[in-house]
């Protein structure tokens, strides 16, 4: 399998503290990786490093076979997309316009968004249940609607590797499941690899093939979701006892 993301000996430091040490990782087409850890453990910092938004403290990151730091930003933006943790809109803009910014890396300097670009954006809006919202001003959206718009923008970008920082934040229960199903379907149909920072180990077990546990002191563990997401490991990770319950073949984790 062709590797979309290859990480060798990666160290990530923030504010003089090493949060990730000696991380090796390989992610192929269609694979789904969950990143879990406590607040402030460095999950977002790690995700931004993988996205090329900040330099690693040590080690190498290859995106689609080429060194990430040496790849031109526009090409990087065609290959990998990022869902940021927060969306802040200082200026008014329509929902469709906002989804269309995902086409930016694909457009030449003087080009305007074509009808084909608009079709991609409208399909993405429909996929996140925002079909009737195209003309709405982003500043009037609720938190959950804004989050779904951010997911639609990422889908409009059509990256081969999608890095998502808490894709489920602000979403109600049915939209959480809908978003994860949509992302999984995209991974399956287009071969997009997913890296998702998540807080619910049960959902991670259900929708991800692999998991990466970030302990915050530099230690990381990675492996298959089944091997990583156990009561014992997660209790150690969150430093809070958890119990695993299996129902209908699904794992759930209850904090005690």
């Amino acid at each position: 399998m062709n590797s979309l993301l290859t990480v060798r000996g990666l160290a990530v430091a923030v504010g003089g503290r090493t949060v990730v040490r000696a991380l090796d990782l390989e992610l192929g087409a269609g694979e789904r990786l969950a990143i879990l850890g406590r607040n402030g453990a460095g999950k977002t910092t790690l995700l931004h490093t993988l996205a090329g938004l900040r330099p690693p403290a040590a080690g190498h990151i290859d995106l689609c076979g080429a060194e990430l730091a040496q790849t031109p930003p526009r090409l990087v933006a065609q290959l990998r997309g990022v869902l940021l943790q927060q969306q802040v809109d200082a200026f008014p803009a329509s929902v469709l316009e906002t989804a269309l910014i995902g086409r930016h890396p694909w457009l030449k300097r003087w080009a305007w968004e074509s009808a084909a670009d608009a079709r991609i954006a409208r399909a993405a809006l429909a996929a996140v249940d925002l079909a009737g919202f195209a003309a709405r001003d982003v500043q009037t959206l609720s938190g959950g609607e804004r989050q779904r718009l951010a997911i639609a923008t990422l889908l409009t970008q059509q990256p081969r590797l999608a890095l998502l920082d808490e894709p489920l934040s602000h979403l109600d229960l049915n939209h959480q499941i809908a978003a994860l199903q949509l992302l999984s379907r995209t991974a399956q149909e287009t071969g997009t690899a997913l890296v998702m920072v998540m807080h619910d180990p049960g959902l991670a077990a259900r929708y991800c093939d692999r998991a990466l546990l970030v302990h915050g002191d530099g230690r990381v563990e990675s492996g298959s979701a089944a091997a990583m997401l156990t009561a014992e490991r997660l209790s150690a990770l969150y430093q809070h006892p958890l119990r695993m319950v299996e129902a209908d073949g699904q794992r759930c984790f209850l904090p005690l």
Partner: protein
Amino acid sequence: MPSRRRALLLLAALAALALASLVAALLAGSYAVAPGAVWGALTGAGQDTAGAVVSGLRLPRALAAFACGGLLALAGALMQVLLRNPLADPYVLGISGGAAVGALLAMLAGLALAWINLLAFAGAFAAMLLVFGLARGDGSWTQTRLLLTGVIVAAGCSAVVALILSVAPEHQLRSMLFWLMGDLSHAGTPWPALLVLALGLAAALPLSRDLNLLARGDLIARTLGVQVRGLRGAVYVLASLLTAVAVTTAGSVGFVGLVVPHLVRLAVGNDQRVLLPAATLAGGSLLVIADTLARTVVAPQQLPVGVLTALLGVPVFLYLLSRQTKGSAT
């Protein structure tokens, strides 16, 4: 997102407005000139008094007004994107304050007009370098740091301006106040300002889709492949230079740089590909109209044009502000 066709139609309409405002400026004034004589003066046929008034006085002044208005509106639109703040204006980072210190020092020393302009430009440039250097100090170069540095430098400049005003001899005060309020009666030749306006717009337009992303935040722009550091530096320098040229030509004319991008944004949205040229045309037209009023409403007395733009701008701005707070409350 307006389609390209709609954008072109809108820009054509604004260009027509700009042309109409220039024609009105050529026709209006205490010396009555017939429309036919205006045409004659422009084509170089008439060599009479009417020709001299139109081509020697009104045309350069109207063009200077258009250039200054366009420069300020364009600089304001760029500053609003750079600071990600719809309430930013070209003067918020102290450029006009630096220019005012330079110009008033030249007036205090009794220097000629050329020196006043030169020192005004030097002052603006010095303020720009000062803010740039201080805001970049720790490498973070964030909006907040830039804004705070600019506001403090501007405050320092206005203290120096107040000092100059308080020690200046009385017969100089009037011209100093006119400069501070913005005045086009000593504008001189309009061509340098027009050239800078054209070059500035030509430099900004290729960046306009990148600017759309910058307006949405540094991080999101970077995730979509925009090289934010270089872009922000370029926008800062460009907006500062445009502002410096405008205040050198006409003093610190207020509110054009704040209100025009705002109004245009209400009408066409925040797509910089349309907003930047539209704001330039609208700003130019507004200042031509305001200046025509400034020299005709109480003729033969002339008002500083900055007073008129402020009188027009303040109520519009307050209205926008109240609308905005209402919008965010609901």
